[in-house]
């Protein structure tokens, strides 16, 4: 059965063509472009490492956006994954109405990427917006979320964290695969709930934690809608993430070669962080015993 190799290849053909045409070719092309100067009108001119030299040595805006991106990713990803794990853990017990909570927590993940939510978010964090209205109830001074360069990044971070539902759903599926017998045994030995969480739950789902961290890192580095709509990169470039800078250079100033170089820096950064995660994973991700716990 299913030995017809040509037939399998034929069915896979759309994907093979699609990957070549829309993924691999553009990938190679953007690399090639990054060594040129290109303004969309005149043909690209090869300029060697000029773009990379420029951004590494003479471009304060690149340094700024790199710093903002790193800070954003290193705070927002742990927050999103941490929340997701915590809520999934609470939801993992037999609870009535679990479906309601699951849907309620998942909804922001589904809508969160939309421009409509970005517009609404901008409003929630406005000077007289909902957040400051709530703070006022506790007698706190309004915080200039969008106008002050120290606070602006937090509006983006909170928007990212708010969408923890997708990671939560994945955690929940993983938690439901942890055998109940392990908890029962630990209970007999007198382990507290906290001990059970850190000694049983967390070690058993490290592969899923790892997976979520990697996927969310890739997302965080590409965050665009939020900074573009809510803060427009400002104030004082405090939310000027790399994706925004790449967009500006490529599609607003038409420095396509430079934009390509920037996007390759972003790619290298994601690759590097992924590699570090993979390297570190051998110290904290445990795959052993996974087979026994399945089903």
């Amino acid at each position, binding site marked *: *059965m299913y*030995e*017809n*190799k040509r037939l*399998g*290849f*034929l*069915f*896979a053909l*759309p*994907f*093979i063509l*699609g*990957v070549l*045409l*829309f*993924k691999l*070719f*553009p*990938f190679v*092309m953007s690399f090639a*472009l990054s060594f040129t100067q290109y303004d969309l009108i005149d043909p690209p001119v090869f300029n060697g490492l000029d773009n990379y030299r420029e951004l590494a040595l003479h471009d304060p805006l690149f340094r700024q956006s790199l710093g903002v991106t790193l800070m954003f990713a290193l705070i927002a990803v742990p927050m999103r994954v941490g929340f997701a794990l915590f*809520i999934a853990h*609470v939801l993992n*017990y037999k609870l009535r109405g679990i*479906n309601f*909570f*699951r*849907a309620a*927590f*998942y*909804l922001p993940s589904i*809508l969160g*990427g*939309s*421009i*409509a*939510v970005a*517009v*609404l978010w*901008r*409003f929630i964090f406005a000077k007289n917006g*909902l957040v400051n209205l709530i703070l006022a*109830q506790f007698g706190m001074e309004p915080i200039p979320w969008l106008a002050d360069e120290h606070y602006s990044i937090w509006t983006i971070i909170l928007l990212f964290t708010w969408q923890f539902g997708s990671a939560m*759903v*994945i955690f*929940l*599926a*993983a938690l439901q695969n942890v055998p109940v017998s392990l908890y029962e045994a630990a209970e007999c030995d007198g382990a507290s709930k906290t001990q059970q969480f850190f000694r049983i739950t967390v070690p058993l789902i490290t592969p899923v934690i790892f*997976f979520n961290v990697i996927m969310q890192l*890739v997302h965080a580095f*590409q965050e665009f809608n939020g900074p*573009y*709509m809510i803060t427009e990169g400002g104030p004082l470039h405090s939310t000027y993430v790399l994706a925004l800078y*790449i*967009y500006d250079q*490529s*599609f607003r100033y038409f420095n396509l070669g430079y934009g390509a170089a920037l*996007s390759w820096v972003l*790619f290298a950064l994601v690759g590097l962080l992924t590699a570090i995660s993979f390297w570190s994973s051998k110290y904290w991700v445990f795959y052993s015993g996974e087979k026994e716990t399945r089903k």
Partner: protein
Amino acid sequence: MSVTKEQRQQWLRYLALGLVALVMLYPLVWLVGATFKTNSEIYTELGFWPSRFDFGAYAKGWKTSTEYTFATYFLNSFLITLPRMLVTVVSCVIVAYAFARFEFWGKKLLFSIMIGTMMLPLIVLRLPQYLMFREFDMLDSYLPLILPSAFATDTFFVFMLVQFLRGIPRDMEEAAQIDGCNALQLLWHIIVPLLKPAIISVLVFQFIWTMNDFMGPLIYLASVEKYPVSLALKMSITATEQVEWANVIAISVVALIPSVAVFFAAQRYFIEGAAGSGVKG
């Protein structure tokens, strides 16, 4: 006091979940209320309930400051979303069938590439893709937004379908094959019905993601009459910076309605779908 430790913990869990749900959803609920409020009310009222129900903000927001209303922009959004959903499902199911049920040369490598592309930041590809579509003379049309999906480039969906198919035993297919079904008949009569829950998740995800997509239309579309809702919203906020917020909020709320409706109609399917695949894009 006959409250057991178990019960107390149960209540604590509900309390925690309820609080989180409140924080998660109240902003959305409050904004719906805000669309009925006057500017001064919006800035002072913490409560959801407006003092009057005035749909004026909706009417004004819907009209926009351009010559088109949001009816045009919604129609445009659907003109992108519906064809894209169709070609996505067709191509992804066929390709997933190949990966899950056939052996062919280079399959392992191709599968790794599929996983790899899920981790590739899309923004790296935007610029060359733009240049390609310019070469194809497809700028300012919906083709750049739809065409790639016809080639199963939304690899997350292929992966999801493959994972789903792997969990289904092959007995039925074997029986059908003995009865003389060919590969295409198998696909249509056996695989597609079995895949139904996963196919629904693919459709729902693609609907919402395409409705949400902003950068794609921003790059490829130039004429206002072709704008989808996301771009039109962006335009209305820039155009009405000084004007009443309620209009902009009202239209943002309307813009979310299709996605919210689809979410609640199908949430069971695609929460399972996302969880089962172990991935969410």
